[in-house]
């Protein structure tokens, strides 16, 4: 029993450290890729190719004064970054990052906790992340923050419907909610769910971008009109926590997309963890690419797109998939 707890705790610590490192280096990746897309060099002074930049940024933010505005609701203001950070991290609890392997004579599972309701758990946890943003916006005592918080809540709940529905298509094929089981069903290349659910994949990707408040759906932050929205009033480590949460959430959506549609850690030659990271960072690159390419939506366009295009499409996809599954079953 004690052994299980110790191994579990060590695994948790390892995953947390890797996830946080990935978050930190995603910021560098974003700055570098954006820079090269705009014919600039990006960070180059901190370490070779700017590799120490995330660490330098972290240390800088630690030394900054923490300002709590007079008009803010102190307690909520302080809680909000934590509330938005923890859901982003918790998603990784059920994401299978590798096949089962053995180390030091112990058999170790390639996932932190193999919940049999994994997909439902992810859906529930990602819904929670909206609270952090709304709390931050409401408690800051600034008009920009309030507008940013309200916008983000409306946007996230609108896109969450299509987000959930696009997953249902995959579950209809997989007949399970366990992430590990879903990965195991995509063993060969043509078994990947992206080939059986291409529309659901596109819907999931689009809604994932909206859920993480990234361009072209970054209305809640909107530097030019809302001055960063919900985190306008934040500084020091609290700001850093929001920042890490945002990138953590992007990584979470990328790894869920990898697991559900691209076969997770499955792949030839290379070790499973490497395949998993390659796929996840492929998605991250795609995110940054979008940011460099597209202008921002207008708010009414955003809501109309979510409710009048994506949601009916997602419903139709679900029903069509159900019909398809039924027909192919009866043929066999």
């Amino acid at each position: 029993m004690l052994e299980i707890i110790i191994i579990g705790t060590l695994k948790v610590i390892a995953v947390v450290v890797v996830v946080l490192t990935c978050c930190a280096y995603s910021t560098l990746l974003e700055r570098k890729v954006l820079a090269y897309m705009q014919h600039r060099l990006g960070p180059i002074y901190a370490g070779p190719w700017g590799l120490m930049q995330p660490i330098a940024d972290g240390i800088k933010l630690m030394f900054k004064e923490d300002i709590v505005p007079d008009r803010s609701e102190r307690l909520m203001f302080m809680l909000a970054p934590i509330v938005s950070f923890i859901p982003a991290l918790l998603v990784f609890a059920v994401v299978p990052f590798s096949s089962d392997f053995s180390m030091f004579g112990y058999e170790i599972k390639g996932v932190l906790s193999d919940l049999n309701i994994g997909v439902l758990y992810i859906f529930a946890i990602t819904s929670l992340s909206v609270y952090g943003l709304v709390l931050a916006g409401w408690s800051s005592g600034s008009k920009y923050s309030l507008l940013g918080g309200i916008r983000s809540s409306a946007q996230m709940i609108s896109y969450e419907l299509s987000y959930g529905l696009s997953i249902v298509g995959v579950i209809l094929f997989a007949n399970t909610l366990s992430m590990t089981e879903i990965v195991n069903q995509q063993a060969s290349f043509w078994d990947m769910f992206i080939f059986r659910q291409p529309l659901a994949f596109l819907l999931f990707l689009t809604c994932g971008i909206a859920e993480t408040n990234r361009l072209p759906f970054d209305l809640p932050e909107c530097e030019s009109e809302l001055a960063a929205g919900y985190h306008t009033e934040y500084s020091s480590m609290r700001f850093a926590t929001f920042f890490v949460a945002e990138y953590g959430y992007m990584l979470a959506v990328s790894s869920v997309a990898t697991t559900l549609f691209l076969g997770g850690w499955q792949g030839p030659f290379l070790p499973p963890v490497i395949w998993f990271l390659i796929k996840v960072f492929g998605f991250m690159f795609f995110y940054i690419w979008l940011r460099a390419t597209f202008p921002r939506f207008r708010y009414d366009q955003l809501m109309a797109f979510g409710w009048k295009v994506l949601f009916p499409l997602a419903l139709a996809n679900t029903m069509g998939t159900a019909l398809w599954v039924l027909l192919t079953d009866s043929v066999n």
Partner: protein
Amino acid sequence: MSEYLSVLIFAVTGAAIVLFTFFISKLIRPHNPYPEKGVTYECAEDAIGDSWIRFNPRFYIFALIFVIFDVEVIFLFPWAVAFGELGLFALVEMVIFILILFFGLFYAWKKGVLKWV
């Protein structure tokens, strides 16, 4: 059970790390508040009025519609898992259920609820 235990350990570790960095930062950062610093940011002007302003009630209506359809999506999850065993019967039932809800969306759409401006 142990699966949920590791989720709990994960959550506690995450919270502990955040609180730890807050604590470290508290030890090393300067603390020098004065009235101007605590003023709400509003384009370098004095803030006009309270920050808890009125906002469009449409946000509220969207939240109401969301609740209805989110419940629908949650119903779809167990349905999708058991679909392989239930077959045609489940499909017909779910199509009827979704059509009723979709009619609701259509009604809201025609009433202009989904329209901004």
